[in-house]
């Protein structure tokens, strides 16, 4: 069963509610929610897709948040969502080299025309979100996006 309709504070303040929501025989392992798609990310974060609309149905499995591109370049995973507050051309280049096709710019950072052009060349989807990196990560985690580690 899925209890995503409970907010994170509700779960933290009253964990028994989560158990109450479970039906008999379900055990302690709730079903994993469906994989989030890019369009769902945009809804959850009230974010704007600035390029790559055609990838709106692209499914997201795991996410990583960093402003340090050196850390992003150490990731081995594929199909990673990058959440960052660093908005420059090297963010897009780093994603290109790391096979990352979806980036969320948090803290109201904006993608420049040059960044958007490079992202289009590499078939990426870019989203702009006014929330902090912390809030962005919290909302996505609550919605079922998994961390890499």
């Amino acid at each position, binding site marked *: 069963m899925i209890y995503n309709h409970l907010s994170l504070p509700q779960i933290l303040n009253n964990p028994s509610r989560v158990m109450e929501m479970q039906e008999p025989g379900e055990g302690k392992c709730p079903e994993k929610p469906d994989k989030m798609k890019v369009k769902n990310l945009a809804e959850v974060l009230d974010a704007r897709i600035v390029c790559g609309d055609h990838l709106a149905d692209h499914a997201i499995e795991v996410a990583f948040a960093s402003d340090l591109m050196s850390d992003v370049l150490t990731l081995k995973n594929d199909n990673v969502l990058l959440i960052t507050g660093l908005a420059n051309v090297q963010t897009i*280049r*780093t994603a290109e080299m790391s096979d990352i096709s979806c980036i969320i710019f948090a803290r109201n950072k904006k993608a420049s025309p040059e960044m958007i052009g490079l992202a289009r060349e590499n078939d990426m989807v870019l989203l702009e979100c006014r929330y902090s990196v912390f809030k962005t990560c919290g909302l996505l985690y609550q919605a079922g996006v998994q961390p890499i580690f």
Partner: protein
Amino acid sequence: MVCYTRPVSNLFSDKKVMSEKVGVEYNVDGGNFTRAGYASSEIKKILKKLNVDMGIIKRTVVATYEGEVNIVAHAYSGTIYADIDTERVRIVLRDEGPGIPDIEQAMEEGFSTASSQVREMGFGAGMGLPNMKKNADVMNISSEVGKGTTVEIILYFKQIASS
């Protein structure tokens, strides 16, 4: 010259369709962060056209990009040369710059001499050379203080037959 070789197990894929040798060279401008990554991007396109395994492409371009950013961050100018044959991809990153006084120290994770401008771009955490070493099967570095640095990386497409 300092040479690093990583173990050859669990590295390779047999997915490879190539019949001839390819050699390309790109110039890299020191300090030009707008263009940093162009050479690595072009090399990635070539490797994709050659149907090289995606995992090997990623390792190659991540290592090349780390080296390219190093040239932009630390050197006055440089070149990136790639040659690809049926066995492996070899990248040589050569720069004219201040050189590295202590290569062993430069290979330590976290050691960095990067400027604040480089750090603002999301780099300069002292992870570039170590990450190149992690991604390459072979890595050789030679450097002369006041002249420049040359880094060679090699990635093999197929596991070398165990003897």
